[in-house]
């Protein structure tokens, strides 16, 4: 079965379906980098984002673009509640990192159960139809979902990069990520920065869940499994390296799907965990690009300069 069309098809579909995984990994890695939290409650944010879009599009009957906004709003609201009523309180009480981690697991399950009570366990999609028309491009099936999904992911990546690079709060986030105590000494309001980091992550997972939920069925517990891919990508990409996590998500998706050419399909899931196992053992700090520190130093210098101007 190994021919150019098959290989091209697998590569294209893998790239397209990695779009939402990139977003989940990006959000997870961002919160880990800035807030220093392994935020498994992201699954709850994802669930909230999906059902917000579901209510907007399927129940109320609003158009798709409003559904995207609803998904973003759902993720952002869940992120706000988690940060305001959860993480902030735990920080004030000087809770240990392990306790915060347990909180994220509990919060994730709490949201999942709440959504189950409201929406039941029957899997559903954002749009009534989950079939997207296909166009053949050089014998490769390109669905009407693929290109907008990749476009949306690219837009989010560029938007996040620009936010972190050029906005004041983006630079504050980098500063807090690098050394939160020092950042506070420079007048950066840490709590506010951590809240913004969560809200940005909430918006990103909202977009991701809209993409996922417009192509596949979702039920309240589904996000937990999707999260594992984000965690794997974050570890593989190098903890603290959000772009590395995004790239790892793409590579993982392509490798996992392309593996069908060499191994039985039942082993594809195993491959993810095999990668994870060996990368944790062999590269506990993840793969790091040699010049990443230089870029970080540049970013670190910027908030220090701006800190005196307020914040």
């Amino acid at each position: 079965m190994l021919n150019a069309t098959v290989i091209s098809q697998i590569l294209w579909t893998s790239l397209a379906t990695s779009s939402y995984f990139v977003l989940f990994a990006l959000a997870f890695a961002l919160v880990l980098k800035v807030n220093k939290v392994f935020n498994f409650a992201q699954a709850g944010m994802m669930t909230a984002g999906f059902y917000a879009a579901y209510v907007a599009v399927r129940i109320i009957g609003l158009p798709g673009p409003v559904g995207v906004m609803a998904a973003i709003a759902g993720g952002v609201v869940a992120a706000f509640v988690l940060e305001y009523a959860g993480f902030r309180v735990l920080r004030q009480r000087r809770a240990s990192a392990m306790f915060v981690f347990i909180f994220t697991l509990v919060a994730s399950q709490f949201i999942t159960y709440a959504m189950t009570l409201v929406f039941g366990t029957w899997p559903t999609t954002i749009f009534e139809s989950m079939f997207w028309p296909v166009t053949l491009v050089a014998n490769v099936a390109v669905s009407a979902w693929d290109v907008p999904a990749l476009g949306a992911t690219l837009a989010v990546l560029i938007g996040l990069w620009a936010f972190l690079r050029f906005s004041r709060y983006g630079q504050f986030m980098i500063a807090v990520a690098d050394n939160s105590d020092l950042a506070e000494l420079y007048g950066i309001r840490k709590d506010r920065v951590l809240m913004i980091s969560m809200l940005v992550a909430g918006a990103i997972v909202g977009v991701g869940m809209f993409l996922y939920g417009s192509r596949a069925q979702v039920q309240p517990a589904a996000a937990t499994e999707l999260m594992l891919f984000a965690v794997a990508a974050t570890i593989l990409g190098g903890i603290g390296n959000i772009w590395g996590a995004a790239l790892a998500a793409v590579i993982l998706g392509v490798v996992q799907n392309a593996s069908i050419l060499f191994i039985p399909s039942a082993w594809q899931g195993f491959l993810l965990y095999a990668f994870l196992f060996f990368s944790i053992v062999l590269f506990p700090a993840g793969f790091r690009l040699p010049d990443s520190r230089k870029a970080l130093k540049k970013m670190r210098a910027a908030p220090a300069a701006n800190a005196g101007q307020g914040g």
Partner: protein
Amino acid sequence: MTRHSPLRRLGLKTALATALLAATSTLALAQQGSYKFGLAMPLTGGQALYGNDQVKAAQWAVDAINAAGGINGKKLEMIVLDTQADPQVGIQAVNRLISVDKVPAFVTAWSGVVKAVAPIANDNKIVELSVGANAPDIAKLGDYVYTTFPLADVDIRAVAQYSAKDMGKKKAAVLFINNETGIGSAVVYKDTFTKAGGEIVAYEAYDQKATDFTGPLLKIRAANAEIIHLQGLVAESPQIIAQARQLGITVPITSYSGIYNPKLIQQLGAAAEGVIATSLAPGVDDLPAVKDYVARWQKEMGREPNGLPYTQYLYDTPYLMAAVFGSLDKKGIAPTGENFRKEMLAIKSFDLPLTGKVEFSDDHTVSKPVYLVEVKGGKWTGKAVVNK
């Protein structure tokens, strides 16, 4: 302290004994005034969506039986307890049904629960009726465990047989989820299709957490299968069918009862055409009583029940209970678990309103017709009945 004469003491004792006897008799009469059975289903938790609808169906049947005079004038009483589809909670519920409510028989579902409570049923000689669970080993759980629902391989055999013999397909591909049920069912399909003269040209499992199915579908496309059997869960099956059609795979796709619901057509539109599913209960086109039953759901609940065929089986169960209790009552035999089992096996065959005839085999399985349905012109239509 007051002292009483011996005669007076005798009188008091006699009065007390008489009162006690009267109270016992009244209690016995009260107990004889109704026949009880237990129903242990998930009323809360992740499976409650189905469990509650199944309980509602059973309650409608109990109400109908009692409205029609009950069991020789005695009331049929159903005691409902929650299992959450969790084996541990199921054990607690069944222990209560047996030790507190003293039922001679109870009904439960979900394979994990059915298996977990089987030793309790066997030890206490109380009949356990599995209604809806389909794990093949349910037939081997002991003397007191029976099923009214066909076990996993019945519909898979039927669809494989039909594909090879009646549809004349020679080359089939099997795509299945990599879990116990998926693997077991795929083996059954493969064996049946091969024995019927066909060839399996692709045999692909997919991971339970998979979110994309391009790879295995491309393998199937390359194998030039004339028909595909999909053994997946309701969560991912529509996506697999959608992706198959997107990749230009136009051959018929068969599956099992899990995908037989109107949502599949809404989700896939024209891509659903040619999909064949199974149903282990007659549909609205097969039996007028089912049409009335679905109409009642629409009228009272404004929707169809979740898992329609399963609710049909649950609706029928109180009728089976009533038939056994009725027979015991006529013969004046006490409704113990042992007697219930003997009488149920003596009657052996029951004609039930929504699922038709059920006959208990010696190997603790039941044989039922398999209804094949196909998406045609945007709706599920009857295609064939196998094992008539």
